[in-house]
């Protein structure tokens, strides 16, 4: 496919673009934007991770400094989960700004993840965010269109196309050559982004370049975006070849950009929300609580489930009242209550996330006609800033919360007397050494292997697009006319 003639045409396209003088101003502007995006990414990553690990530590210190106490006091004292940013979020912010960052973990209650960047936003966030990934997904295609819209159409207008073809050069060679030249130019714009991302990763504290996972992500990003740029360049040349004039080619390309980048994603996402409505927090809480009351609510003094449990406990241990049991009874009740409520909550949360996935499905489907959606998804997955990665954080935090509550309940069952303290007697406590024995919350980024499925479809689509757009070049070569 890449014979000498194509290569010659590619080289010629490259040098004539440089000669035209437009390259230097565009390239300088581009470098400026890349520098700003890199700075923003770096700043946001380091500042937030510093703040979050600082408060994670502060909260831990006060946890450990608690004196001897009743374990249930500590279950309410609780802990925090502050979400750390993945180092690759410097490259692609993904959903970072729209997901919560801070979660209070306590017994009996699953709190909401609060303080997303969006909740502090003045409305500016609605216009999007500048990140390296955004520049590659949104701005670079525009630059490619600009550099390539006249690639074939101008030759046709100036009637040089006929000359080239009459010299024995095939249509295919022209199209492949021009696409190759345009891709090379696109890669020239991509190169500084790769370099700067490498530097950001190299100097960041996350040190992910020391891990295979990190390298796989980084290489995945390079390959996917390179593929995206090949696709964009090929489409540009195709549209240029199919248009009578360069003006027509430009207008078509700009329309394509607007439709695919601005219009389509918003419309399909709105459609998804319309077809699959998700519950509000009130509805969610109400339905969870309703089910809890049905199955067994430990806060209800006459709950049938807990009454039955009590009776069976008494008969198994052959005692007449709960204070004769060999363990602390209220600790036991709370352990059972926590188990039931956590189980119900998790089930409802899974259903909610399923609804969200259904909402997103419309947009995901359009990846078939919209490579922008495909690259956006793939990029977020690889950067650890997609919804699956966020859910993983939520999951880890909830697991930790559950362990904290149950550990305190078990300590109470084991170490706290069943008999209520007499008036004037000091309240029961256990040693503070138990506090530091319980480990701190440590968030671990989900490995690529567990989240990669989230982008599976988009990966496939991106590859299909790559193959199809290259095939189209050959197919088109048989159909287009020189004049």
């Amino acid at each position, binding site marked *: 496919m890449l014979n000498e003639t194509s290569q010659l045409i590619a080289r010629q396209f490259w040098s004539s673009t440089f000669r035209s003088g437009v390259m230097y101003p565009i390239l300088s502007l581009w470098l400026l934007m890349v520098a700003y995006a890199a700075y923003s990414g770096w700043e946001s990553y380091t500042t937030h991770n510093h703040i979050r690990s600082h408060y994670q530590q502060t909260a831990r210190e006060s946890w450990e400094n608690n004196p001897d106490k009743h374990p249930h006091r500590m279950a309410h004292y609780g802990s925090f989960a502050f979400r750390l940013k993945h180092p690759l979020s410097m490259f692609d912010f993904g959903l970072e700004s729209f997901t919560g960052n801070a979660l209070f973990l306590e017994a009996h209650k699953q709190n909401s993840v609060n303080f997303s960047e969006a909740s502090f936003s003045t*409305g500016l966030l609605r216009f999007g965010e500048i990140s390296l990934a955004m520049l590659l997904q949104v701005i670079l295609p525009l630059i490619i269109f600009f550099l390539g819209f006249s690639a074939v159409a101008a030759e046709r207008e100036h009637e040089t196309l006929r000359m080239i073809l009459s010299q024995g050069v095939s249509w295919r060679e022209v199209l492949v050559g021009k696409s190759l030249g345009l891709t090379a130019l696109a890669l020239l714009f991509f190169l500084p982004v790769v370099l700067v991302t490498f530097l950001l990763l190299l100097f960041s504290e996350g040190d992910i370049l020391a891990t295979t996972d990190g390298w796989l992500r980084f290489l995945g990003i390079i390959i996917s975006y390179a593929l995206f740029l090949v696709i964009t360049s090929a489409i540009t040349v195709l549209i240029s070849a199919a248009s009578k004039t360069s003006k027509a080619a430009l207008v078509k390309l700009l329309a394509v950009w607007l439709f695919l980048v601005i219009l389509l994603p918003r419309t399909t996402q709105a459609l998804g929300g319309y077809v699959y409505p998700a519950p509000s927090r009130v509805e969610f809480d109400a339905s969870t609580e309703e089910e809890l009351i049905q199955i067994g609510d430990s806060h209800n003094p006459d709950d049938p489930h807990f009454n039955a449990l009590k009776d069976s406990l008494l008969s198994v241990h052959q005692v007449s009242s709960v204070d004769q049991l060999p363990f602390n009874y209220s600790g036991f009740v709370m352990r059972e209550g926590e188990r039931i409520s956590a189980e119900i909550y998790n089930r409802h949360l899974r259903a909610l996330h399923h609804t969200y996935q259904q909402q997103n499905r419309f*947009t995901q489907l359009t990846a078939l006609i919209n490579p922008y959606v495909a690259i956006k998804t793939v990029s977020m997955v690889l950067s650890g800033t997609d919804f699956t990665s966020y859910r993983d954080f939520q999951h880890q935090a909830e697991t930790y919360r559950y362990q904290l509550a149950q550990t305190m309940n078990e300590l109470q069952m084991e170490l706290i007397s069943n008999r209520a303290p007499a008036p004037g007697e000091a309240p029961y406590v256990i040693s503070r050494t138990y506090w530091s024995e319980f480990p701190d919350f440590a968030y671990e980024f989900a490995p690529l292997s567990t989240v990669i499925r989230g982008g599976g479809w988009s990966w496939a689509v991106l590859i299909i697009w790559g193959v199809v757009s290259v095939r189209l070049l050959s197919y088109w070569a048989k159909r287009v006319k020189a004049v």
Partner: protein
Amino acid sequence: MYQILTKQFIRSRSTVIVTLLILTLGIVSVLMGEQFLNKQQRAIDEAAHYQQEHIQQNAQWHADDLGLLLYYLRFTFINSFDPLTALSVGQRDVNSSIQRITIRGLEGQKYDTDLHNPTNLQVGNLDLGFVIIYLFPLLIIAFTYDLLSEEKEGGTWRLVSSQANSPLLYLGYKLSVRVGLVYAVWFLLWVFALLKLPLSLDTNALVFIGLSGLYLAFWLALCAWVVSWQRSSSFNALSLLSVWVVLAVLLPASLNSLLANLYPVPEALSTMVEQRDGYHEKWDVEKEVTMNGFFAEYPQYQKYPLPEEEFSWLWYYAMVHLGDAESRQSSEAMREKIRQREQASRIAAWLIPPLHIQLQFNDLAQSSLDNYLSFLDGTEEFHEKMRLYFYPKIFEEASVGKENWESFTPEYFAEAPEVNWGLALAPLLLFTVGLFLFAILNARKLKAFE
């Protein structure tokens, strides 16, 4: 002449397609807005219904202990919305309009978010505001970029300018046909919105409509100015789209990351930690210290002696209140940071029309960050009101049955936005008039034969 120009323009396939596209999206956006209103209303109804159920249930479970009952009871406070929210959803989807709070520590409750699909938030709402701010400029660009150049490139300019009395007037006619169609689409969408949504034509709505109309005029002026340079169609299309990308995407987005980095909000996290520590450490200090702190703020409760028992509700509610009091400083510092962000973006918005319009729309629709901050203030007052109502009853161990629980229905917060006509319109008016003047100055140099 007018008729011919109109016919010629309207018959073009691209005109029809683009117009229909915008009309469809505009209609969809109004329907989306309607759905948003319905969703809000449903949540409010649900909250009202749920509140009664929840109170009855708990009043039955904890019939002999008012202090314990109020440990559990959650009261609903709602940020009422204007139907205009449907047209500019703003921050309303991110920040919850419904607070359900207990009379315990407020700082641990008031920032609780609603549930939302982050992908929806990232992609953004398809509301009429979006159609006006983003899409109408594109419609205007598509209609006008080759106003003059298509004649020159198509070779008809020579003919036109020799026949028409004044080539400038001819261009004026052509432009006015396009202006007419743009405003016709705009008008139709407003008619549809007014019919479909429970909007009343009050001052806010009129300013909203007026602003949107003026914003279109700004883009028309900008296009006229670029056309008056008399460059090629490709050049015009590219420069206008670049201006659009810079004004509607790059500048606001850069500004957003700049502000986020200039004003990080660590206070949000310190508030959380301080609130927890402030309350919980009270369990381990002398009760007297806690009570003194509490009585200093509320001397009216000094008459209640602290019960002899190890635990009493008087002591408990004093502890949680001090937890709030001790984190208040961080909480206020956080508010200050957010205000700084708000202020900075408002100043910058003077120079970036799409941003200015977005902020104004959100103000009018009561969906701005500012509105949310006021709602938080309102929540604080509501919380205090409920506390002060129940404190004496709890401390006196009043009977649960004597309280008329049915009277506790959700309460509403309402804040009328302050409309400042001058500030809202001035920057746009200035830009629009300036650009039109430049365009006309350039056009007067227009020569018929080139």
